[in-house]
């Protein structure tokens, strides 16, 4: 059975599966609304972080203003909801399409710039947009934002399930989109090729412009879904969704979790976001939490420079040196080619003598 052969033998996938099941059963574990709220936010932010990773981690187009897509979609959904009274099931998709469109527009300078310079240009876009929002405050609500949006669902548990379902589907699509070993799509490979060396990719006959814009649009679209869900969940679309700190936070989450992996940013958000929220409940939490967060980040970057998930993965998984199949670290022989994964001390000593 493919499930037993390709999921249960790899510890990383088992952990991902267990995590998914836990998320689905979470409302049964606790009925506490505050905790449910934190997990819902974590799910929304993990979608946002994964969309950043698709663009910056995989395609190598550094975006330091990712809040733009999130905020644009939040505002677009809110305006559609308040002025046209569309249902939630229309406002969020339309909002995310606006996000994708903005992604294409932001992608245009990306065709000429790269690295930190592109980062600086993308950084400017959300600042421009917040300026526009404050200028047309009659229409956009200005400082207070647009409030009184319709709910995702009447009760918290249903809303939780709606969010989880949409987030899981979206993350799965992005996982397939960026998977270099996929049997259907080859975009994952091409995006990585563009990240590694754009010139070589072009000389290999790949239209890099098309794929870079595609990455921007996809990333904008899914960040838009996150933005729309967020706006409808808290029922406010405010200028805070466009703040600089919100753009930077997604970079921190993704780097802490592991850039260039889809599960990394998810893990990063689900570890860091609840942590910062829980600290708040303790005395002086509000002041301490950013110091603590920075400490965690500095330490993690020192000891786990590739991110926490990659660090854990290397501990529990091992690649067969011969056939490059992933094995559990506990195995002595490769599950595919039976080559020994490592030698015992005794064998090691014997090998020298022969």
């Amino acid at each position, binding site marked *: 059975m493919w499930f037993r052969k390709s999921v249960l033998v790899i510890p990383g996938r088992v952990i991902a599966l267990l995590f998914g099941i836990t998320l689905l059963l979470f409302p049964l574990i606790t009925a506490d609304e505050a905790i449910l709220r934190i997990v819902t936010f974590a799910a929304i932010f993990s979608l946002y972080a994964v969309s950043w990773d698709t663009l910056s981690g995989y395609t190598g187009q550094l975006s330091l203003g990712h809040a733009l897509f999130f905020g644009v979609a939040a505002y677009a959904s809110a305006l559609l909801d308040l002025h046209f009274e569309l249902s939630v099931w229309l406002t969020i998709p339309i909002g995310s399409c606006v996000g994708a469109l903005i992604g294409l527009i932001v992608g245009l300078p990306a065709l000429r710039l790269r690295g930190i310079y592109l980062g600086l240009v993308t950084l400017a876009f959300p600042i421009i947009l917040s300026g526009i929002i404050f200028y047309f405050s009659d229409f956009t609500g200005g400082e207070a934002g647009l409030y009184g949006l319709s709910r995702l669902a009447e009760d918290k548990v249903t809303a939780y399930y709606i969010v989880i379902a949409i987030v899981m589907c979206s993350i799965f699509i992005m996982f397939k989109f960026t998977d270099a070993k*996929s049997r259907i799509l080859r975009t994952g490979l091409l995006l990585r090729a563009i990240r*590694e*060396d754009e010139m070589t990719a072009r*000389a290999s006959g790949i239209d890099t*412009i098309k794929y870079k814009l595609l990455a921007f649009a996809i990333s904008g679209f899914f960040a838009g879904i996150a933005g729309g869900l967020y706006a409808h969940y808290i029922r406010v679309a405010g200028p805070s969704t466009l703040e600089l700190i919100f753009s930077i936070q997604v970079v921190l989450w993704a780097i802490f979790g592991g850039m260039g992996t889809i599960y990394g940013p998810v893990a990063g958000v689900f570890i860091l976001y609840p942590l910062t929220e829980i600290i708040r409940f303790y005395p002086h939490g509000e002041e301490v939490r950013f110091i603590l967060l920075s400490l965690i980040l500095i330490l993690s970057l020192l000891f786990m420079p590739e991110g926490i998930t990659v660090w854990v993965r290397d501990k529990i998984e091992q690649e067969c040196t011969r056939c490059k199949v992933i094995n559990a670290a506990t195995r002595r022989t490769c599950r595919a080619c039976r080559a020994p994964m490592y030698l015992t001390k005794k064998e090691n000593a014997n090998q020298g003598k022969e």
Partner: protein
Amino acid sequence: MTVPFLQVENLTKDFGGLRAVEDVSFTIDRNEVVGLIGPNGAGKTTLIRLLMNILKPTAGKVTLKGEDITGQKTAKIVNKGMASTFQVVKPFRHLPVAANVMVACLSPKTKRKGEWVKTVELRALDALEFCGIADLALEPASVLSHGDLKRLELARAIATEPELLLLDEPFGGLSPAETTLVAGSLRRLHKGGRFGRLHSEGPAMLIVEHKLSELMKIVDRVIVINFGKVIAIDVPGNVVKNKDVIEAYIGKGGK
């Protein structure tokens, strides 16, 4: 009159005040191997980059199979059947060797039906096998030695199934043994039939090279350039006797 396969007319490139390539014109036939030689800084690499439109020419015209390709996107030129290798190897370092070549097999002309991903993989392995590095297919490109990287570069170029292959110093930095091997595979490639386009001829080639002894064995004609100008186009036997060429390489005999 038949249209020449590749025709270069009055190609010129200025870098600020420096005229790197000046008024270069030549043609290449469909079944020809042409060498491009010249002293350091003569503009050989620039010329290749101009043909691929990695650099934009200041003036001039390049036609491939009668179609004007001056100023078209590099990727589009590659898909029209002209591929090149780089002098300085630039692989996708973190991707496996096989994936490096697979990227080149994914051009828009690849049919995307049925088991196409499998076909692409097989074609990539075929190209690697042809260049003799199929055993390294699963290793990341960053662990390869320079000679293997050169061969990977060649595999990547031929995986695009070119009709015209521009090779920028394919023997650069290779050991004598490796040079013989690569020269051998280039000859086989030109004969055709073996790789990719099974029922067709091998690609025409334009080879930039400094190892003249190896180069002269492969090529039908040699183009010599110096200071961006063509100083001789002739068969190898005559080129080595040409006065201008000797002068460019060794200098004038002083009296």
